[in-house]
Every structure is written in structure tokens, then in C-alpha cells.
């Protein structure tokens, strides 16, 4: 793969990762679902493994924020990439605002496999785990 393709893939991957965080924290469930491949998987530690957009929609519709929250994603490393597939590893912190202000509820990691489908980078598999 040429270096410029690698940079393009990296931009697409980082874009999908950011779009997921924005859509999730905004409670835009349909936009979250659309970031997964039709045959994509979201595997969330302690919650379950959800395969396909219907299963993903059912789960994420129960995660619509009830109070201000943010997932801050950082330290993304693209661990492999080709023309139409990439893997990436990122850290995140989950902040929620309660009566006592903002607090860090969870810190974790995303391990992602993304496929390029019709020009868009989509999650084929997202594994979410928490730092215990």
C-alpha cells in the first residue's frame, strides 16, 4: 500500500472513531448504527455481543444519555491497514455530569476492525473493554 493510501485510511478510521463518540453522546442511535457494517459486531464487556444492525440498534437505543456525558477517545494507534480494511486500538474516558459536577466514571479501550464499504470506513467489529 502506498504511503498516501495509508494516510487516507488513517483519516477515515479516525473519522469513524470520532463520529461514533459524537453520535453516542448525542443520543443519535441511528447514526451510531450506520457506522457499523450491516454484518458488523459490537462487543461490550459486561453487556454482550451484538451482531448485525438490528441487534446493535436494540442495544444502543437503551444507551441514550439521560444526563450530560462525553466519551473522550485518545491515543489511537492504527495497528494495520490496507486499501479496504484496518485495525486500530484507542483509549477512552467516559465522563458524566451529576449533582457534584463532572466525574470520570469509566476508562477503557476500543479494539476496532474497520472495513471500507462504498468509500466509507465502517466498524466491522468494535470490542469495548474497561480498565479494571
Amino acid at each position: 500500500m502506498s504511503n498516501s493510501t495509508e494516510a487516507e485510511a488513517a483519516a477515515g478510521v479516525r473519522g469513524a472513531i470520532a463520529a461514533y463518540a459524537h453520535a453516542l453522546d448525542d443520543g443519535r442511535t441511528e447514526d451510531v448504527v450506520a457506522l457499523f457494517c450491516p454484518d458488523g459486531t459490537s462487543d461490550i464487556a459486561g453487556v454482550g455481543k451484538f451482531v448485525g444492525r438490528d441487534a446493535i440498534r436494540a442495544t444502543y437505543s437503551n444507551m441514550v444519555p439521560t444526563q450530560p456525558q462525553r466519551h473522550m477517545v485518545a491515543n489511537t494507534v492504527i495497528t494495520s491497514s490496507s486499501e479496504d480494511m484496518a485495525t486500530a486500538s484507542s483509549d477512552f474516558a467516559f465522563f458524566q455530569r451529576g449533582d457534584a459536577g463532572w466525574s470520570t466514571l469509566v476508562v477503557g479501550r476500543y479494539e476496532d476492525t474497520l472495513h471500507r464499504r462504498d468509500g466509507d470506513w465502517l466498524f466491522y467489529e468494535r470490542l469495548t473493554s474497561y480498565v479494571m
Partner: protein
Amino acid sequence: MTESTQARVATAVRELIGAHTQAQDAGRADDIVELYTPDGVLEVPGFGEIAGHDALREAFLGWAPTQPQRHLVANTLITSATEEQATATSDVAFFQRGESGWSVQVLGRYEDVLRFHGGAWRFHKRTTTYQA
């Protein structure tokens, strides 16, 4: 430098910073050291300048995590880039989990000088400052 070269260098620099952060929070001192040029320098408040692989290894072994922690590095701005050298400025938040959960211990900034050395981008100098 062409636009695609700039994108390629920017991608490599972000990957490098991400790799350093992930290795540091996992306590992989040898992996961190490999990300520095042989004459690489790390400057940390209270520790002065730590120069060269042996000194860096010793320092990072001393900083190996004793409880769950994460550095989240964000707002990376590539301030200059050529085929051989780049500079970047990033913000960092350091989270640690104690008995009462996760908390932000330190906010700081990284000023990095990166060099293309031995076929890969590496840290030539990282200057860490803490927000007072």
C-alpha cells in the same frame, strides 16, 4: 513538501505519540525506549533531562504503573514537518484509579521533536510540562 507528504508525516507522528502513550500505561519500558532515537531526550519537571536509551529505560521502569492509569493525549498539533523532522504539541490528562474511583491527577503538555531515524519516526526530544 507536497500535501500528501505532510499528511503522511502527520499520520506517522500521531501513531508514534499513541504508541508511546499505550506502552507507558502498560508499563512496557523496552517498547517505549525503542520509540526514541539513540540520543533521544525526555525532559520531565523534577527529573531534568533523561538522555539515551539506558537512562530512559531506567526512568520508565521507575514509573511503571502501580495502579490502573491512563494518559489521554489530545489536541495534537503538528507545528512543522519535513521528510526528516517534525514538531508537535499535544495536551495530556493523566488519570489514575484510586479507592474512590478515577480522578485526573495532572494536566500537562508535550512538546515533541520527532525524527525519521532508522526507517521509522522516533522521538528525538519530548519536553513535558505540567499545568500549574
